[in-house]
């Protein structure tokens, strides 16, 4: 209950900060009317949008409406801001899940094998692979993939959405960074676990090697990995701005960045609200799952 209350306070705090910062740095009316407009037309539009009120009044109005589920109408698009966000949320969810799925499927085996073949050529190869993955900038990898798979080989669609094939390149691009950190985490966590007493006991009992690794060692080793996954999930749900732009993938990140540049406040606020709710929820879930994964952890 206490945690829930603090979660709500966090969300309100985040929206307040965003509200103030976004309004300090520019005005949507200037951007919409362009350089050519006159002061009269500016004032008229500003009044129509309610932007001529003092900022604390604007925030109060926003809070009251937000509690009623109304996040205002997008200044640029003329449709409800929340609708714009919700239209794109499924796209982002699909991309996020594909990315995490891909990262887990590749990273965890690499991590395990590297740990088992500790300090061998295989281990080094795995770690070099992850180094490279972590250091390649996503815009570069994305464009390379487009040129190779999209233009040269023509096996995958280049941009947009519509078929499962459209997800492949963005998911590879996005997972490259995450994959690296996950593999390294799995490796170190696995190494630590393999030196524990109970693993030696299990081996001494004469259990099969694979049973020891998968049923005994991996389970324990995965606890920190789950934490990182939870946080990464929340982060990805906030959108992957660069990747989404490269592949013209209509997700939340692209919407957010366009809204920020245009100072489309209602959309910025709706995105921030949705993302902060997801982050807070993801944290809550990770905490709860902890207590079950590791019965020793208890929250007062």
């Amino acid at each position, binding site marked *: 209950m206490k945690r829930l209350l603090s979660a709500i306070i966090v969300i309100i705090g985040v929206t307040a900060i965003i509200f103030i910062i976004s309004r300090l*740095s*520019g*005005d949507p009316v*200037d*951007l*919409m*009317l*362009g*350089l*050519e*407009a*006159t*002061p*009269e*037309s*500016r004032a*008229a*539009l500003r009044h*129509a949008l309610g932007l001529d009120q003092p900022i604390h009044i604007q925030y109060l109005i926003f809070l009251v409406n937000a509690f009623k589920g109304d996040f205002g109408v997008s200044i*640029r*698009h*003329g*449709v409800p801001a929340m609708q*714009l966000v919700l*239209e794109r949320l*499924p*796209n982002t*969810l*699909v991309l996020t*899940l594909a990315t995490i799925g891909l990262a887990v499927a590749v990273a965890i085996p690499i991590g395990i094998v590297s740990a088992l073949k500790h300090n061998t050529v295989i281990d080094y190869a795995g770690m070099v692979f992850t180094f490279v993955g972590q250091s390649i900038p996503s815009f570069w990898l994305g*464009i390379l993939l*487009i*040129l190779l798979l*999209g*233009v040269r080989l*023509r096996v995958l*669609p*280049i*941009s*947009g*959405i*519509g*078929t*499962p094939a459209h997800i492949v390149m963005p998911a590879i691009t996005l997972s490259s960074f995450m994959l690296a950190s996950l593999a390294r985490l799995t490796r170190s966590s696995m190494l630590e676990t393999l030196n524990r007493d109970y693993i030696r006991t299990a081996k001494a009992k004469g259990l099969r090697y694979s049973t020891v690794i998968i049923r005994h060692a991996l389970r324990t080793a995965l606890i920190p990995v789950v934490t990182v996954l939870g946080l990464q999930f929340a982060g990805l749900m906030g959108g992957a701005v660069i990747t989404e*732009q*490269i*592949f*013209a993938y*209509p997700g939340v990140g*692209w*919407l957010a960045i*366009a809204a920020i*540049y*245009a*100072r489309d406040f209602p959309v910025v606020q709706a995105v921030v609200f949705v993302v902060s709710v997801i982050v807070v929820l993801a944290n809550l879930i990770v905490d709860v*799952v902890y207590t*079950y*994964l590791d*019965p020793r952890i*208890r929250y007062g």
Partner: protein
Amino acid sequence: MTGSESVKPDRRSFLKIVGGTLAGLVIGSVAGYYLRSPEIREIIRTVTQTEAAKTITQTLTVPATTVTQTTTVTQTARVTVVQTATPAARPRLTIAQGVDPTTMDPDMQSETPTFVVLFHIYDSFVEIDREGKLVPRLAISWTYQDPRTLDLELRRGVKFSNGEEFNAEVAAFNLRRMTTPPQIPGAKPTVLARDYLTVQDVEILDNYRIRIKMNKSDPLLLRILKSKLVIPKKYVEENGFDMLATKPVGTGPYILKEWIKGDHLTLVKKVDYWGGPAAIDEVVFRPIPEAATRVAELRVGNVDIIANVPPDQAAVLDAEPNIDIRTVPSVRVAFIMMNTETNEKLRDPRIRQALNYAVDVNSIIKHVFQGYAKRVSTLCPSFFAPYDPNTKFYEYNPAKAKQLLADAGYKDGFEIDMEVARGRWLGAEAAAEAIAGMLNTVGIKVTLYTPEFGVWAKGTQEHKIRSLAYAAWGNPTFNVLQSLNALLHSNRPFSWYSNPALDALIDEAFDTPDPEKHNAILRQALDLIFEEAPYIFLYQHVDIYGVNSQVVWQPRPDELMLAYEAK
């Protein structure tokens, strides 16, 4: 502690539940996501239609239908309705722009990519052709009764896509929406209202004639009507203006079929368009923000026209056998503004001329724009009426610049601030850096600032710019008077320069609608600003398009890509 533990389910079963829910979510969302894709919908349609056919046959032959069969019929009915909007494959044109259109309400936006789409759905009152001449559209003729009274005669027999008729009442309704404040009860001020501040009143003379009364002489208004896309009156009165944002109804050559925001927007041609049906049946607009991705999509043939090809990629694309690079000089002119209000040094014309002599514009055109820009003498693009083909330029002459600086008392140069907004104009940042370097070589030490465009625009609205500021001004009226008045007339919000002689010429041009006299005055004004050098004069942009060679289409200087003009 122990008590609460016994209430909880055991760890294993909890993990199973969590895992199961997550897996369900994943499968559900993925399935739901792909149900929206056209290909899958097509498959579902075929499947369900066959099912429905079976069911119906069964219903016909077997009197007692089961509950499941009835459900199939209703579901199919729904799916089929969605699908009837999808015609079979037809000639289609796919256009990729940097961004998605923002709204389908033409008066509530001012972005080129949105205008590009809207010019397919709506018609404007007049059109400006490639030579800058006015051409009839929904207005077939126009007369200035006096400099403040403009009569329009309207086209007859034009209908909106909902069947509503276009007439004087609709035309007046459209212009009354644009006045400040709007003369329609309950209407919000529009984004484009800034262009119609001189409109005082609109009278309906008869069913196809209206009279526009202005509060002061405004020869630009007729050219502004090129951007006034005409919306239906009855439709708006019945559904409200907000409906236009997503469900547009216009008199244009195309109708909106589908708009998946952020992914694509599809238009189909109107068979009974008053100007005759378009050659292209279906037009698809796709937003692709990354230029490299637009280029890739063009190379594999998924899109037919792309805008804003980066100059360094133009040569590569042109070398491809089935892709053409087509260019057109744009109405956008770049320059460096000088703030003569805050910086006293810039009030001396010798210093302003020195700055012009110090900048090697041709080298910037060659190296930053790969040749895709065109030098201008002042602020006037090459195809505007008062442009003089024999016009002269400030040639690159650092020695002369130094001499002028010395004459003005700054033998050792001085320090100055300069700014360029990021992310708005092609090549602006690189060009500004080059200019700063060139000024350094004649002894003017430049500190360059690069604010984000939104921040810079907010500053200009508070009438704040640094001593030097890079800007690129788009003038859709094809009349240089608009630029001169906004940028160089004293006491205008976007002017940091004052010269009574120039003000007098601008005011005179406003009061002189007769084209020949009007242009002669503007010619004089341009000569004056060339001598006075209130800006560092640079170049006009050249827009670069990548086009599938099979498409018959030529780019326009006003940045509009119109499928109606393509084959």
